[in-house]
């Protein structure tokens, strides 16, 4: 069971109260008429399916009924952070891999020392 932090309620709640709602940060093209079929099709139907850090939209369905974003690791299922709609994630796949490289470097240095 997940124990999810709702940024609007300001506390952790049981997973049962939430629903996942798919990939977050999808931006509707400003001018749909000016899109090629491929661009419009990508926007409508094609979603990321990463192995690792993924940004998703969830809704606190039984509770405040607000949508918010969740950064979740698709391998470990770990929820790395939750943040309100309109905000940007502080943890991304890039920041995670940089942190890992940093840790690896310091480990090597540790070995050398």
């Amino acid at each position, binding site marked *: 069971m997940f124990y999810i932090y709702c940024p*609007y309620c*300001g506390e952790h*709640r*049981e997973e*049962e*109260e939430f629903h996942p709602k798919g990939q977050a940060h999808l931006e509707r093209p400003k001018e749909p008429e000016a899109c090629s079929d491929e661009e419009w099709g990508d926007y409508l139907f094609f979603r990321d399916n990463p192995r690792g850090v993924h940004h998703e939209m969830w809704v606190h369905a*039984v*509770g*405040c009924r*607000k949508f918010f974003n969740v950064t979740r690791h698709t391998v470990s299922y770990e929820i790395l952070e939750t943040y309100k709609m309109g905000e940007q994630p502080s943890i991304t796949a890039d920041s995670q891999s940089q942190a890992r490289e940093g840790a690896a470097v310091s480990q090597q240095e540790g070995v050398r020392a």
Partner: protein
Amino acid sequence: MSNAATFDTRTETAIPVESPLAYSYRRSGAPQAGGPSRLQLRERAMLGHLILRGGAIVLDEAVRDVLGLNLPGQPQTLVQDASGERSIQWLSPDEWLVIVPGGEEFPLETKLREQLGSAHFAISDVSGGQTLIELSGEAARELLMKTVVYDVHPSHFPVGKGVTTVFAKATTILRRPSEDRWELVIRRSFADYCYRWLLDAGAEFGINVQQ
């Protein structure tokens, strides 16, 4: 004054009115504990329930003028007047539940609409859609522990808190107006199901239903 169409849901005509639990009382009865009871259940039927939606600052001013209560700004909070008859509960960042004695909801709605004028807000009278069930007694918390997914330990659920959560797979608003009293706001359509669940879950504590 906004141009929303409003009407009083309580009519003058003599139409028999039944609480959402009337059917359940007939079907499942109202058990009385023979000896001392650790759990009491009482429905507070026919109260006035209003849902307020809008910006906190605008609504707060109107509610303070009309009802004399502050709009709770902090999540999961419940405020009541001195008598405990009127209460406002935070439901979401732009939504509050107001419960007042039956019959007061329409005058209150009208006054709030006058006060709010052309501000951006919504008021819905949901009195007919839900009912309030009160649980008291020393076993009330034990019963809730078996039933809701939310942590009801006093350190996590102090007096003056109210949350929307899952109650036996149904949605409920759970609130704690005083030390030994818990309130459940349940949907009319789930009232019979919840009532029967409460009777079943409360049997071991010798539940006592006050009608």
